[in-house]
Structures are given as structure tokens and as C-alpha cells.
């Protein structure tokens, strides 16, 4: 009976971690470029008291075995990369990706990180950087006398100069991964590549399955409030049911221990 105590404890802890994940999703309902996480549960190892198909006598096989499991564990979380709602901001350097792909950002130590958060700003030298000051790659520098900046859906950046001429500053690139779910979340709306995600492949926005860039929009989070609330209720009830089980197991133990008075 002590086994059931620990089995139910794994159940309670798993529901607690499930709620932790739901809370993180709900907390990030308004985070630009946020992708919600989904948890996956797995049952734990089973004790093999009798193996199915084992021989019980000469030529007589047992049809089903005797296996008692040991509980549950959370074996993975998966980021769900569905498109978030586009929010119009009308800011010249806010960009939303419609479709697949990530912006490539270079950190101060030279490492490459990736994001869906397209809220860029100009730094002191006119270079496009994230709100944390990290540079967009490939670097785009807006001349200080530019009156208007236009970014096309294919990522081409055109500026209008005071003389009335239009100058092309280059084209933004997006990056695709074979398995975006395998990216490591670093926080600060940033992702890092791992062996599981595959190497980044650079693409032109709008071509070969890479998403398009929309200037003046931001991609909101893809958290669905209703789904998360329903999951929260499920987690809470599962937690309660497990704790009732623990109480029952404890009462049975108490009865067993007090057989001899």
C-alpha cells in the first residue's frame, strides 16, 4: 500500500507541473511572438509480476500478465508554432512574420539566436536592433536623414532620402528550421538552435515556404485563453482526485497498522 502513496504523489506532482506550464502560457498572453507550450505525459515503468504469454503449465500460456504501474511523469514540453494574431501598431520598424520563419539576431558574444518578436528599434548609429539592443542579422542601418522607411513583404528595405530619391538598403532574411519544436527557449522571446531543431536554413521572405514580412504589425502570442482555462480545470480536478486517493491509501495503511492493538 505504500506503493500507491508514491504513485499518487507522482500524479499530484505531474498535475502541479502541468499547472506550472498553463500558468506560463497564461502569463504570456500579451507577449509579442510568444509560442505556447504543450506538455506530454508518460506512464512510468510497470512491475512485471507475471509476464503475459508465460507458461503456467505444460503448453498452457497465460493470456494476460500481471503488471502494476508506478505513476506518471512529464516527459516533454513542445512549443506549438501556430500563427499568432497580427496586431497593428503602425510603427515603422515593427514587423510581423506571416507564415514560417524566424528573425536572426546576433548576441553581443557573437552567437546566433532567433525570434518571432519583430519589435525592432534604431540604436544610436541607426542600426536595426531588438528592444534589448541586440542586432538584427544581416545588419540594416538606416541613414539619419531618411524621411520614410518602407519594408516590403519580401523583406526589401527602401528609404526615401531628402532629395526625393529612393534608396534600396538591402533585403531582410528569415531563417527556417526542420523542427522548430526542438529549439531551446532562452527567455526574452529568444530561441537557440539545438541538435534536435536542425541547422537554420536562410530564406527570402515569401519564397519556398518562408513567411512574409508585414511592416507596421506585431505578431501576438498564440495562447488560447479558453484552452488554457479548460486545461487548468482538468489539472485542478486531477490533483484533487489524486489527493483523495492518497487519503484513502493512508486510511487503509492506518487500518493495517492498527490490526494489533
Amino acid at each position: 500500500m505504500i506503493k500507491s502513496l508514491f504513485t499518487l504523489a507522482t500524479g499530484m506532482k505531474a498535475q502541479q507541473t502541468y499547472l506550472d506550464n498553463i500558468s506560463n502560457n497564461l502569463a504570456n498572453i500579451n507577449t509579442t511572438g510568444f509560442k505556447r507550450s504543450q506538455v506530454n505525459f508518460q506512464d512510468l515503468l510497470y512491475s512485471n509480476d507475471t509476464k503475459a504469454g508465460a507458461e503456467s503449465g505444460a503448453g498452457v500460456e497465460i493470456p494476460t500478465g500481471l503488471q502494476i504501474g508506478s505513476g506518471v511523469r512529464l516527459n516533454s514540453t513542445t512549443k506549438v508554432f501556430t500563427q499568432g494574431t497580427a496586431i497593428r501598431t503602425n510603427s515603422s520598424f515593427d514587423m510581423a512574420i506571416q507564415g514560417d520563419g524566424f528573425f536572426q539576431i546576433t548576441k553581443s558574444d557573437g552567437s546566433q539566436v532567433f525570434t518571432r518578436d519583430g519589435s525592432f528599434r534604431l540604436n544610436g548609429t541607426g542600426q536595426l536592433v531588438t528592444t534589448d539592443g541586440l542586432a538584427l542579422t544581416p545588419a540594416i542601418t538606416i541613414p539619419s536623414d531618411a524621411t520614410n522607411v518602407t519594408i516590403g513583404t519580401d523583406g526589401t528595405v527602401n528609404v526615401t532620402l531628402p532629395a526625393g530619391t529612393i534608396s534600396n538598403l538591402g533585403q531582410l532574411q528569415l531563417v527556417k528550421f526542420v523542427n522548430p519544436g526542438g529549439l531551446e527557449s532562452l527567455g526574452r522571446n529568444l530561441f537557440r538552435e539545438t541538435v534536435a531543431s536542425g541547422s537554420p536554413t536562410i530564406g527570402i521572405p515569401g519564397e519556398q515556404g518562408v513567411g512574409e514580412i508585414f511592416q507596421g504589425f506585431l505578431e501576438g502570442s498564440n495562447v488560447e485563453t479558453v484552452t488554457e482555462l479548460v486545461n487548468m480545470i482538468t489539472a485542478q480536478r486531477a490533483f484533487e482526485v489524486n489527493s483523495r486517493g492518497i487519503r484513502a491509501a493512508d486510511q487503509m495503511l492506518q487500518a493495517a497498522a492498527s490490526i494489533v492493538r
Partner: protein
Amino acid sequence: MIVGLYTSATGKMAMAKNLEVISRNLANVNTTGFKRNVAVFRTFLENDPSVPGASLARVEINHSQGSIKGTGNKLDLAIYGNGYFALDTGDGMRYSRNGHFRLNGDMEIVNDVGWKLEGESGVIKLPRNAKDVMINDEGAVMVDGVRISKINIVDFANKEVLKEAGNSSFRTNPNNRVDIAEGYVVQQGFLETSNVSVIDEMVNMMSNMRTFQANNSVSRTINGTLEKLIRTAYTVI
């Protein structure tokens, strides 16, 4: 039969010790940087199987990550990943995950009991007219935009060498190697809460209590049998 009495007594003592560990963990559910203790039991004398019973082998410290809570204070720091803050007590070094710091009269970064936080070049001291302190992911300390030091986050190859020293801190033998930690992130404005899992402790406590009761039943049974034996022997004479 008397051996059985002593065996069940060792069982009860082991459960009592376990309860001490569990109570201490539960008492520290809200202590910043506390690392829960786990009691490890073994059979009474490992090299003498003829002496039965259980005893406490050691109390281990579980160094898993605790949850992080935000406080917004500039000098509250939380470490994600491996590593400990190195604190100079003036009478030896202590290592802790408790990142609640303040400034003392000399503008040095100290913890609640005045132990000084160690940086790359000794104790970290802020200039008198410092207005804003920023501590980045690696623990570098920036005052008004100027980098003045970096917090030493240290780690140990074998965490078994850390012994509890009070105030959520650990001490180790000065001969033990202290390495610079890798793969950590320092978050300013956050604190690491204790890593005690209330569910685990409650379930352990239940299992503990029932085991104690079972051992108690053994004691009572032996007691009853002994009593009958003595009474019968008495009436015979």
C-alpha cells in the same frame, strides 16, 4: 524475542529521525535558497547481517533548482542552473543560493547577516554616488552604465563536500577545489525559493507515520507475548 524488541525500536528511532528531517524541510518551505534534506537509511550494521534493524546512514542535501519568484529589488539575485554565490564571512568562505543582498555602510554588497559578496577582484564595493545598479546574465555588475566587477559564481565537482552552515549557506573544507560555474544565468530582481516539494514531504510523512505504527505494533506484540510467558512461568512455580 528480546532481539525483536530492539529491532522494532531501531525502526521507530529511524522513523523519528526521518520525521525530524521532514519537519525541518516543511519549516523551510518559504526560506530563500534553502535546499531540502533527504534522510538515507541503511540496515543496522552493514558488515554484520546477524544484527537486524535500521539506522540513519546520512542526511543528504538535494541541490535541485528551486522556483524563482520576482521581487523587483535591484539587489535580489537568482541563479538559474549550477553555481553558488561566494560569501566572505571574515572567518572563512560560505556558499549560498540565497541571493537577497543589500548595501552596508561601506557600500559593499552584503547579505542579511553581513557576509560580503565576492566578485572577480574581491569584495564588490559600489561608488558612493551610485544611482543605478544593473547586473546582467553573467553576473557582471554595472553601475550607471560602467562595469565595475563581476560576481563570482562558483561550483563544485562533487556537491557532497558541501555541509550546511546556517543562513541557507554551505561550507566546505578549504582544501576542496572551487571551480567557476558554467551554464548559469543570474537574474536581477528575482529570488530562488526553497526546493522543498510539499507533496513529497506530506507523502513521506504519511508513509513514515504508518511505518512507525507498524513497528509499534511489533513492539506491543512482543511485549504481550513476553508478559504471557512470564505470567505462565510464574503460575507454574
